[in-house]
């Protein structure tokens, strides 16, 4: 089963209960998350950088695949909402003793977990878990295989909106290893839902999935052509660890054709911003002078990721007990 069905994300009264994929979410849901994230941005100024929204709730970061930045920002986000957070590096746990993912999750649910943040190398893992847990438990997809990484895409959208003031008329170029990228798929869904003017993907044919044009994007094999006039340049990490066989020529050749240098960036709009989901392969997909340059918003993306993940967690947990409003 392909986990593209967005319906499982909503409860019977239309409230967002899980955050698994951006595909199928209406624009109002996305802008609502971005608006709420905006109000979490002022938190750095407070003496106490916490709000009590998730006080008494337990969030389990369940990572079947290694991750530092995503897991850390989820942990900080949950803690700023006053939740109790448990980090499980599940790759080393009982799955190696033969327990299935669902057994692991059911065991943790029996310990009264309210929310799971799930990362797995298999597509559909978060979806599988969401469909097998009681309805009061929330699930956030923190990256599943090549399928989706919706919270990364939302923090990218948040960063674009802050930098560009909106989405109308924007030309966005996504560059690099689209084939192995769950980030790219989520970005394309989010960008088209939010209504940018044009989404392009640029990369060697071997790293561009054949069906990608059906998502409404334009495909370019040449950087100069693809970057021409772009307002936003979203670089992807070359995922060498996921590659089987010879998909790219030598690293030097890849960098010379697709690595983002200051020279190539001149083809984009003069006020174009450069983004990257991290971790960066310096000198492979992006030159250090660009990654650290004045057009780069890569570190803002990391900071924004906390506010956006707080917003998504708060949106999912809000109204958890149901009932009437009490002024």
């Amino acid at each position: 089963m392909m986990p593209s069905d967005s319906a499982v994300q909503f409860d019977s009264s239309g409230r967002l209960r899980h955050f698994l994929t951006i595909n199928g979410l209406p624009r109002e849901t996305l802008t609502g998350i971005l608006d709420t994230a905006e109000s979490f941005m002022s938190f750095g100024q407070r003496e106490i950088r916490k709000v009590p929204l998730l006080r008494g709730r337990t969030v389990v970061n369940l990572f079947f695949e290694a991750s530092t930045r995503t897991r850390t920002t989820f942990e900080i986000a949950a803690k700023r909402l006053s939740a109790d957070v448990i980090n499980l590096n599940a790759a080393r746990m009982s799955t190696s003793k033969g327990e299935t993912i669902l057994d692991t999750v059911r065991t943790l649910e029996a310990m009264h977990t309210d929310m799971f943040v799930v990362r797995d190398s298999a597509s559909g893992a978060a979806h599988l878990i969401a469909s097998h847990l009681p309805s009061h438990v929330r699930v956030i997809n923190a990256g599943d295989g090549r399928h989706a990484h919706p919270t990364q895409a939302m923090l990218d959208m948040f960063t674009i909106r802050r930098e560009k003031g909106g989405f109308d008329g924007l030309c966005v170029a996504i560059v690099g290893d689209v084939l192995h990228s769950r980030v790219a798929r989520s970005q394309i869904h989010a960008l088209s839902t939010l209504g940018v003017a044009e989404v392009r993907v640029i990369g060697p044919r071997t790293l561009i999935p054949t069906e990608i044009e059906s998502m409404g994007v334009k495909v370019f094999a040449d950087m100069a052509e693809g970057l021409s006039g772009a307002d936003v340049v979203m670089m992807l990490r070359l995922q060498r660890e996921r590659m089987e066989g010879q998909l790219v020529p030598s690293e030097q050749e890849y960098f010379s054709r697709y690595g983002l240098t200051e020279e190539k960036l001149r083809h984009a709009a003069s006020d174009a911003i450069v983004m990257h989901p991290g971790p960066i392969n310096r000198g492979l997909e992006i030159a250090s002078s660009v990654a650290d340059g004045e057009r780069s918003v890569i570190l803002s993306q990391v900071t924004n990721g906390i506010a956006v993940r707080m917003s998504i967690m708060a949106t999912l947990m809000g109204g958890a007990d149901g009932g009437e409003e009490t002024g």
Partner: protein
Amino acid sequence: MTNPILLAPILDQMAADIQALDLERPLMIGIHTGGAWVAEELHRRLELPSPLGTLDISFYRDDFSRVGLNPSVRSSTLPESVDDRAVILVDDVLYTGRTLRAALNEIFSWGRPAVVRLAVALDRPGRELPIQADVVGQRVELTPERQAKIARGEDGALRFDILTRERRGGSA
């Protein structure tokens, strides 16, 4: 339909009553949205030197796990530190007291004020928490199904419309 209550005369009296509290270097904070409107008017009348702050208490409400977040939540803006200051907290209506409980919690996440005084334009029965105002514009007797809703006219003047609500909710 009950006649609306106009705020202009109420605000003048409130400003005088706040003045009479004799606070040193007060910091005025209005609760978003209605309280911020009232606070703007009071702030101008009192010519306070410190800029006005606004508070959105959505993240501190006690009904989050029942009703969720208000989608129109805004950032709170406190332009000066509340530490050791005399804070004048302003809201449009004092009803159950739950909004003020949330506002006090939020203020203390920004720092430790010396004192907090409460000024409200309208005080109505129905308190559910031990909270009372130091300055009250007007007391009104409203039954639970009636709601006092602040509005701004085309001329910019503030008023309360007295409405019949379908169910309990809204400002407190």
